[in-house]
């Protein structure tokens, strides 16, 4: 039809110079469905600029219409892809007493591609559970195989515990109907959560923490031989009380999708996932896409059908991408690496997850240094390196920033000290006032170690540093892996409300070292102190391996 139109329609009249400008601008605007409109920089032509902005609004209205059409034509019965017709009749209701003496059904929580989710009371234990009905479509042989595969995974997952994975409790069968009994997580999904946020997104630190946490859970489940293949905000639940994220729906999409469909959600799927077997590289992509979505409120490639999404994801994110403005450069860089269209070029899942954690912790440390009043210089933190038997001071430098860094609303980078793996260093800390001093180091993989003192000073204990007293920690050897570390010292007028036990989730056994992967508690404890009662200094230790060429 289109070729025929080209033949019979008169050609458009040649464009005027103004039209050329407008056409190029609107073509660029139409390439993104972002809600924000980039102003045309035409200060010399306010009339043209006004016209451009009005037409840009039409572009966004068309995007919204297209998106609404897509949802209406594909989103079936509660939010996901249309199930096979034969599955639509399978449903449970409040009147059904399907599990007498075991569970009492309370209310429907939602409906997904393969069935419904119901909230129920566990009648034998003081807890609530989520009951998921499983209703795959297709012929009987295929359904039997799909359910058998899912049941195998479920059986394995019932033996599995991880704080960031929704626990599978039981598999139940009533007649021809199958049910998964799951841990109930109050708080809805992260997809619900970003929809409820006035800004339509989460702050980058919270989003990165959730992704690092569920990434840890995902790594643990992968070791059981189970892949997810449908990681997206809707499949990450939020424990409201603990403010923790938990991954759910392992294997369900993979096992139950019709062979004719792809398993997963196109906006969060790696381009190769449409036609190649599941791989961990696909989960890296989906985690990166989910982190992008949580931080910006939009899928990285918000097309509305798989051909468009695949072509967008192959082209990659625009450079720069205005949607990343509120995101720290290291987080944006990690997302870009995870979204690489070539699976070979993506980091491994282990590297991706540990890098998100490490960057998050380093950035959190940097943000703590901004907590202390900038005019106060009451705390000095310095590093010396052992050279020919003597410690010599190493001068710190302000790290270079890339151009887009300047527009970002993110923590100021800490001054950096260049080192090499194998160097022996000493850390010197001096506070000009009496109080409590603690020194931490965040290693290249994001682990937070307490360097001084050996245990956190308990509440009510005597100050551990006097005004002007020099704290000298020497003999610290810079070890592999190479990378960027954060050394930071916290002085406080009172002991921080933080027990060593709260920071001991990494080094076990024996629990001799105080170390953690989650520095939230440190940040909370520091920020709880009045601004005048705390000082924080941060230094970056940037060490290359011994072949790195630093002199």
């Amino acid at each position: 039809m289109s070729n025929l139109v080209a033949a019979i329609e008169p050609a458009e009249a040649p464009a005027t110079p103004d039209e050329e400008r407008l056409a190029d601008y609107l073509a660029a605007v139409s390439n993104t469905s972002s809600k924000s409109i980039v102003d045309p920089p035409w200060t010399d032509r306010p009339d043209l600029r006004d016209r451009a902005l009005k037409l840009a609004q039409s572009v966004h209205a068309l995007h919204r219409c297209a998106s609404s059409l897509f949802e209406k034509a594909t989103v079936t019965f509660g939010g996901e892809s249309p199930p096979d017709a034969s599955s639509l009749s399978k449903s449970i209701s409040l009147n059904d007493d399907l599990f007498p003496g075991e569970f009492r059904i309370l209310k429907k929580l939602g409906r997904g591609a393969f069935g419904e989710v119901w909230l129920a009371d566990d009648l034998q234990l003081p807890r609530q559970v989520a009951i998921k009905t499983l209703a795959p479509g297709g012929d009987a042989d295929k359904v039997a195989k799909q359910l058998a595969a899912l049941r195998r995974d479920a059986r394995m997952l019932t033996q599995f515990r991880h704080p960031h994975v929704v626990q599978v409790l039981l598999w139940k069968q009533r007649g021809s109907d199958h049910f998964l009994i799951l841990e109930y997580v109050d708080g809805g999904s992260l997809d619900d959560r970003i929809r409820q946020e006035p800004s339509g997104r989460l702050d980058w630190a919270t989003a990165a923490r959730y992704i690092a946490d569920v990434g840890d859970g995902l790594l643990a489940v992968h070791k059981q031989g189970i892949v997810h293949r449908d990681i997206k905000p809707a499949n990450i639940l939020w424990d409201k009380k603990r403010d923790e994220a938990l991954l759910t729906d392992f294997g369900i999409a993979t096992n139950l999708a019709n062979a004719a469909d792809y398993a997963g959600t196109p906006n969060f799927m790696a381009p190769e996932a449409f036609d190649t077997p599941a791989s961990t590289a696909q989960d890296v992509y989906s985690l990166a896409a989910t982190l992008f979505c949580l931080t910006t409120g939009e899928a990285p490639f918000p097309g509305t059908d798989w051909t468009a999404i695949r072509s967008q994801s192959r082209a990659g994110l625009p450079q720069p991408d205005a949607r990343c403005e509120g995101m720290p450069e290291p987080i944006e860089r990690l997302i870009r690496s995870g979204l690489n269209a070539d699976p070979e070029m993506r980091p491994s899942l282990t590297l991706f997850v540990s890098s998100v954690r490490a960057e998050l912790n380093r950035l959190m440390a940097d943000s703590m240094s901004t907590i202390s009043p900038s005019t106060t210089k009451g705390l000095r933190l310095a590093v010396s390196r052992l050279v020919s038997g003597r410690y010599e001071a190493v001068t710190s430098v302000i790290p270079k920033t890339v151009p887009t860094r300047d527009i970002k609303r993110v923590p100021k980078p800490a001054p950096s000290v260049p080192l090499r793996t194998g160097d022996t260093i000493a850390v010197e800390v001096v506070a000009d006032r009496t109080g409590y001093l603690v020194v931490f180091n965040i290693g290249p993989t994001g682990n937070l170690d307490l360097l001084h003192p050996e245990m956190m000073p308990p509440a009510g204990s005597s100050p551990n540093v006097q005004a002007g007293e020099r704290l000298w920690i020497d003999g610290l050897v810079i070890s592999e892996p190479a990378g960027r570390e954060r050394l930071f010292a916290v002085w406080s007028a009172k002991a921080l409300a933080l027990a060593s036990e709260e920071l001991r989730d990494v080094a076990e056994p024996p629990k001799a070292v105080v170390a953690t992967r989650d520095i939230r508690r440190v940040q909370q404890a520091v920020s709880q102190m009045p601004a005048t009662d705390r000082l924080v200094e941060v230094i970056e230790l940037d060490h290359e391996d011994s072949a790195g060429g630093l002199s």
Partner: protein
Amino acid sequence: MANSPPTDLYDLRRLLQAALADDRSAWNDLLTKLRPYLALLVRRRLASNASTGLGESSLVQETLLKIDQHFGSKAPEGTRFRGKEPPAFLNWIGQIVARVVANAIRDAHAPPRDRRREDENQGDFDFAALPEVDSNDEVGEMSVRVAAELEHLSEGRRIVLQHRYFEQLSFEEIAKILGKQPGAIRVTHLRALADLRERMGDLP
């Protein structure tokens, strides 16, 4: 804060409520208004299933038939549309389009034995089941109007907007299909937007 009254962007609410009261003339007007929208829905759905070779207009016709069969007091009790407002109605017809196109694709690709099974399964098609929808889906209603107004653009301009927004093609891809330069397509895109805006005024 008081609830704002539901909007009626394209006279859909009035026509729907009259049709629910068995006003046949209103029902016909409503279906006429919806036809371009249905065509876009079908096109949208087909775009997700490349190379189906299915006829768009026959699928629109089949969808209209299904809508008509399951709407109003004459429809069987168990399968009747039970909503009252345009958002639920648009959602309902979206489901019908999805199902009609999905069945057509299956029929086109399935061996004869499977086709027979699908035919037997038609009874499971639950037209009455409705998802929960926003009570004031302005975008959905605006889409009905946009679809209608697109019909009034010159065919060349309409096709560029359809390819760009409803099939998500790049300017380069559209240029290739239409045998033109991408720069010319960008100019047509600009003029099509201007035409649409002139017809619709300020879009919400």
